[in-house]
């Protein structure tokens, strides 16, 4: 049985359709990523699955329990780390952890083995008030508190937003460790480059799911030839490239632009037509999650 089953879930706020008939399943023990920008509906989905909101239409099952009928059973089984820091700033690190343990009727000792790989980083500061911690330390405390009752499913809403690259990478290492312990993890992020750390991902935008697959599988669905193009004047290159026949799209992609070709594209003709562009360089390149996201958004 899947750990999470989402079936045609919809939720509106006034005229805004935050979630529009979303369906997917997460396997037990899977590290599943929701990848999408602000406004994709990620937070609404988390709030529905953690029983903090009721759906307008459709339904979902978490760890075998229905999100509407069995909401109390779900609350004791899941851990939730909201996007905004939600611990008590004027309690110490230790007091916050004790508080969450008490809420769930457990002791810190009982769960220490599970939280230790994360909590040990902040334990030296256990008498410091949570409000005085750095961003990376707050994040570790919030994760420790979300784990204290040994949840079977963990919901993490944008845990790496606003965190620097080193802390982000460490955080993903911790999630990999939790996955080893058999915990199912649903994690959201706006950063496409974090997709590769997940077993499977759902690409989401404006309340809809554009595709679900392994990161590799998503990339393999990109079925057009793709080139990386660069030149001295990157802006002129963009405009000129788009005028060439067979160029489906050309968009900035970091150091080079990415050029999506269709069947009419001819490399020699492209080079000839752009002969006035200085230091033109064009090489085939591999698509990324972001290329696929762009393609799916435009469909």
């Amino acid at each position, binding site marked *: 049985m899947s750990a999470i089953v989402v079936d045609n879930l919809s939720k509106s706020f006034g005229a805004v359709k935050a979630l529009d008939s979303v369906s997917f399943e997460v396997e037990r023990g899977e590290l599943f990523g929701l990848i999408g920008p*602000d406004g*994709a509906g990620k937070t609404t989905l988390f709030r529905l699955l953690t029983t903090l909101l009721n759906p307008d239409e459709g339904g979902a099952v978490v760890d075998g329990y229905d999100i509407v009928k069995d909401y109390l059973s779900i609350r004791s089984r899941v851990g939730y780390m909201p996007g905004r820091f939600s611990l008590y700033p004027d309690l110490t690190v230790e007091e916050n952890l004790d508080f969450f343990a008490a809420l769930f009727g457990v002791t810190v000792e009982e769960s220490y083995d599970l939280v230790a790989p994360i909590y040990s980083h902040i334990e030296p500061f256990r008498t410091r008030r949570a409000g005085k911690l*750095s961003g990376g330390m707050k994040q570790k405390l919030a994760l420790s508190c979300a784990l204290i009752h040994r949840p079977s499913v963990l919901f993490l809403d944008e845990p790496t937003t606003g965190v*620097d690259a080193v802390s982000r990478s460490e955080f993903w290492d911790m999630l990999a460790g939790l996955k080893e312990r058999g915990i199912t993890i649903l994690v959201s992020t706006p*950063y496409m480059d974090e997709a590769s750390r997940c077993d499977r991902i759902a690409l989401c935008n404006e309340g809809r799911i554009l595709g679900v697959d392994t990161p590799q599988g998503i990339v393999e669905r990109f079925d057009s030839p793709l080139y990386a193009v660069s030149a001295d004047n990157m*802006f*002129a290159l963009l405009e000129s490239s788009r005028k060439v026949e067979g160029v489906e799209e050309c968009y*900035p992609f970091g150091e080079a632009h990415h050029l999506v070709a269709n069947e009419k594209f001819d490399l020699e003709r492209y080079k000839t037509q752009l002969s006035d562009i200085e230091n033109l360089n064009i090489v085939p390149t591999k698509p990324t999650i972001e290329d696929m996201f762009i393609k799916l958004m435009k469909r």
Partner: protein
Amino acid sequence: MNDIIISVRELTKCFGDFTAVNRISFDVRRGEIFGFLGANGAGKTTAMRMLCGLSYPTSGSGTVAGYDVMREGEQIKRHIGYMSQRFSLYNDLTVEENINLFAGIYGLSKAETEERTTELLERLNFSSERKTLVGSLPLGWKQKLSFAIATIHRPEVVFLDEPTGGVDPVTRRQFWEMIYEAAAGGTTIFVTTHYMDEAEYCSRVSIMVDGEVRALDTPARLKQQFVVESMDEVFRTLARGAQRGE
């Protein structure tokens, strides 16, 4: 015309006995897209505040848009543009009201404001949205408008603070296209971010660790130097050695 828009030497900022920024030196050229990176706590914000004229250095020297960073903070503020993801436009004012507000802050005359408003709206294809509330515009439009307004007084250099965090990939590319266009027109772009994929869009990037600039080059040469595939790996290699936290 001088082709160096920002030039700083040994720029230092101390708070008590804590040296937040420690003798940083670099030049930024006209039309360059310069990425300014650093981990949380590396001194990025403090350095940028000095470059924007919001705080005076403890020691060192330098100029931004031709004004002295040691004593002409007010002049610097008037001659640069600034745009951050957090502080952008007023949602409950119309497009035109937002333009008027910022034009007024930058001291443009009524005639100049009217002329530039018309020009700006035409350039963005926004003329029909003059009386629309900014809050009801799509995110991509807001960003374009926000950048156009940050440059309404035609500054030589614009500071962008984490410009595209949380934005969808298509909107993000429209934004970078606008940045490339501005840079091609001679505007210098100074971007601070801790998202390494934004760094890949820059002509050159500098990386701060523990208050110092530890690396400065094109993304391609930095990747070559560290023998890695991405700026993310360059950054992590450098930042892992950091002595101070946030």
